[in-house]
């Protein structure tokens, strides 16, 4: 009887020890390095997120290599519009400070589509305080040109009022009041 009881105890103790060891192994395998250092998560995950590639830079980042555009863009009314929105991210163009690939440059109708994305009056949800809008084809008809004119034929894409101002200056020599 006593013998039997002892074997039982041995079995139970043995089983618990095995379970504990197994638990430790499982924990070792399943719980990764750094888990719990700062909370219920893997500390290295913060570093993974930190190390993500930065694909966009800023408008400033483009200017040192594009001095001609810099002059127009900074002085023009489009200075708040992102170079990278119209052209694509820095990361697709520059690597380690050098040009590694070309960025797409829009032409003709693509340009008109791009401009209308922001300036089309037909989308009424746009606040007038943010942006001036035009109605098509009225804008072109008012100017007495054919309606297949693209926006860049009268507006410099990087400084859209540049030509308009120049034309006004030529018309009545001085346009200080609308500068």
């Amino acid at each position, binding site marked *: 009887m006593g013998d039997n009881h002892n074997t039982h105890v041995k079995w139970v103790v043995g089983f618990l020890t095995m379970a504990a060891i197994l638990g430790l192994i499982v924990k070792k395998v399943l719980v990764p390095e750094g888990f719990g250092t700062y909370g219920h998560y893997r500390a290295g995950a913060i570093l993974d997120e930190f*190390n993500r590639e930065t694909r966009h830079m800023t408008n*400033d980042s483009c200017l040192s290599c594009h001095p001609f555009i810099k002059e127009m863009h900074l002085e023009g009314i489009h200075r*708040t519009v992102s170079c990278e929105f119209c052209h694509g991210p820095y990361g697709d163009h520059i690597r380690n400070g050098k040009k590694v690939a070309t960025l797409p440059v829009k032409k003709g109708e693509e340009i008109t589509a791009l401009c209308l994305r922001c300036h089309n009056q037909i989308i009424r*949800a746009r606040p007038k305080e943010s942006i001036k809008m035009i109605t098509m084809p009225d804008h072109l008809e008012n100017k007495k040109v054919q309606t297949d004119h693209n926006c860049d034929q009268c507006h410099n894409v990087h400084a859209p009022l540049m030509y308009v101002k120049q034309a006004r200056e030529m018309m009545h020599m001085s346009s200080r009041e609308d500068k």
Partner: protein
Amino acid sequence: MDRIRAEINNDRRAFIKKVLNGTIAGSLLLVIPAGASEVAEQLSGMRAEQSIFTKKRFAFIVDVTRCIGCGSCCVADKLEYNVPDGNYRTWVERYIIDDEDNVYVDSPDGGLGGYVEPRKDIPHPVRDTFFVPKLCNMCKKPSCVQVCPVGATFQTEDGFVLIDKERCVGCGYCIQACPYSVRFLNPETKTADKCTWCYHRVRKGLLPACVNVCPVGARKFGDLDDHESEVYKILHLPHVVSVLKPGMGNKPALHYVGLRREVV
């Protein structure tokens, strides 16, 4: 700096381990790689921050009264993160309210292609129409973190709710739990994914990509402890400021200026 950088390259794992154990002086963790520093710092003092958690209180403000629905933010976000088609870390919704108070909301392709067509299916005259950009609310009490069974989604001490791609098992509980539906299952990694407020950029002193490209200043990001910051001024001067679904009790750090009550 050079020594540390070489060390990272030689043996990143060992390096991380040392850093995590705090054996490198000052528990230096985040070393800004070359490249980012060629561009002027946009968030002052961030490049000097090398400890794992900053002492800053970040806030994101969306000004609904300025948004023109151009979708620059959506394009930048997709390209910054190579987000698979059909998934959106940030998106722009168009609200239309007619004079019978019916509310119509649409967001074709998340606003990625901009809004080129007016809606033609509104039966009554339009009373009010506006755009609402959406992104992670960075809740101070995030329900997504609470429900994650494996500790793959977590909140840093400086308030960023992030996802550990290595831990995530793609169970989708967090996607269900998010009151703002900002989470999705990334079909490429098969893990949960969402907006991070560009943690990787912010820690390198750059503004989130969407904030940088917004042409009308409808998205603002900054530190609430910096009393010169735009976000501080907006939140502390009289403005109509609100958060989405305040009743959920998640306490979002994302605030909206000029939000109409129809917006959910």
